[in-house]
């Protein structure tokens, strides 16, 4: 079995979202979905997918590429919204529109029962985000909550906790994915704005660590045993040295955060997962198996194609160099446990 935990379905055209906006917000200006300062040379999406409509916008084509060509059994769809928008109330309506669109166009018509979806919420509107989770959490095909990597504050801060509490109460993991570029974003690196796409793309995924570290140190994971975060842009190659650092400081300054009642790294297995990324990992495949054991990554990592992004990776690429147990973990076991997905009906197990 193979589970692809990171697929971005797209609108066919920009205005498609307006069909799903409530009347009061229908005429508001909304950023173009591809309005992003840091554009990859050659386009953000796989070149062969450009056509009349956006790449990744036709369910049948996506199903063919994932289920037939890549032999994936389940795909978790995590649509981008439009990132941070200064009008947080409008942004919450955009998230709701994206969710309704995902249900109408992708999940409800999918008789193969292989697509799963994400409840997109706007963390800058905690009350609205909780309401959106409550509105949709019971839907059997919506298996996680989605928020942007870009955030005004790290996600361990107390204003966000009601959102995480609602997600955990419904046993929904929270997926953090880069999602923005619309002008109210914060600098993508600790030192400000990168000049070029490589500088952006190399660093931006690493911002997850700030969210993860504050979720641990501010006690959010400790208070919510069922809360799980999925970091969907990779970045797990910096996990081990930074966890060593956190563990070291905790040994010295534990009394400042006594609610952290175990090593910070001990929170990883119960609370943190990563989607695979083409940019992570050793360049020498011979180092792969040992590297995967650092910080127990073989239990944390889930295959995610990133389809239709230009850096889309196939299952065999994500599993390159792994031993058979690691390979099973990454391709399906970790995701199957997280999302409660078992092998589909007989005859389709590969």
């Amino acid at each position, binding site marked *: 079995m193979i589970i692809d935990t990171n697929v971005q379905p797209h609108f066919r055209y920009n205005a498609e979202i307006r069909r799903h906006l409530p009347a009061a917000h229908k005429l508001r200006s909304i950023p173009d979905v591809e309005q992003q300062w840091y554009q990859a040379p050659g386009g953000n999406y796989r070149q062969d997918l450009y056509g009349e409509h956006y790449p990744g916008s036709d369910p049948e084509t996506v199903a063919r590429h994932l289920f037939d060509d890549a032999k994936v059994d389940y795909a978790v769809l995590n649509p981008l919204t439009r990132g941070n928008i200064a009008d947080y109330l409008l942004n919450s309506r955009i998230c709701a529109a994206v969710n309704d669109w995902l249900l109408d166009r992708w999940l409800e018509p999918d008789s193969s029962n292989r697509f799963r979806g994400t409840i997109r919420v706007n963390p800058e509107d905690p009350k609205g985000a909780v309401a959106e989770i409550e509105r949709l959490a019971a839907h059997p095909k919506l298996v996680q909550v989605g928020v942007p990597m870009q955030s005004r504050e790290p996600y361990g801060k107390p204003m966000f906790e009601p959102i995480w509490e609602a997600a955990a109460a419904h046993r929904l993991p929270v997926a953090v994915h880069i999602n923005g570029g619309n002008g109210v974003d914060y600098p993508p690196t600790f030192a400000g704005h990168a000049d070029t796409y490589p500088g952006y793309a190399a660093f931006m995924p690493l911002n997850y660590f700030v969210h993860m570290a504050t979720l641990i140190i501010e006690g959010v994971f400790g208070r919510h045993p069922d809360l799980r975060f999925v970091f969907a842009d990779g970045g797990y190659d910096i996990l081990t040295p930074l966890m060593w650092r956190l563990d070291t400081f905790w*040994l*010295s*300054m*534990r009394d*400042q955060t*006594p*609610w952290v009642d175990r*090593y910070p790294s001990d929170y990883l297995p119960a609370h943190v997962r990563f989607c695979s990324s083409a940019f992570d990992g050793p360049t020498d495949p011979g180092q792969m198996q040992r590297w995967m054991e650092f910080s127990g990554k073989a239990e944390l990592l889930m295959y995610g194609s990133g389809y239709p992004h230009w850096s889309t990776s196939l299952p065999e690429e994500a599993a390159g160099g792994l031993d058979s147990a690691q390979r099973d973990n990454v391709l399906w076991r970790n995701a199957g446990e997280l999302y409660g997905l078992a092998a589909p009906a007989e005859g389709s197990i590969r």
Partner: protein
Amino acid sequence: MKLVDVGKFGVGVYNVGGSLHAIVNYCSHEGAPLCEGLIGGTNETAPDEPGGLRRVKDGQIVRCPWHNWEFDVTTGQNLADPKRRVRTYDVDVDDGKVYLTA
């Protein structure tokens, strides 16, 4: 605390609320003279209090002077990770004299 010049590193004898406890003057982390560290208390979680913290175990916790690790002088255990401990010694008081047993 009274530092007694015995053994390779010396032994610190502490009076914790009227009972005597002894630990080696050698931090199990990197070998610092542990008993030169501050003796005091530690913090526990108190979610309903304004700072979220409560001071407890006053006079029972020594902090290593090098890296701030906390040890309970009555058990020798590190507060963060009880598996990381320092050696303790039995203390007996007899006729006004304090005996340490190694």
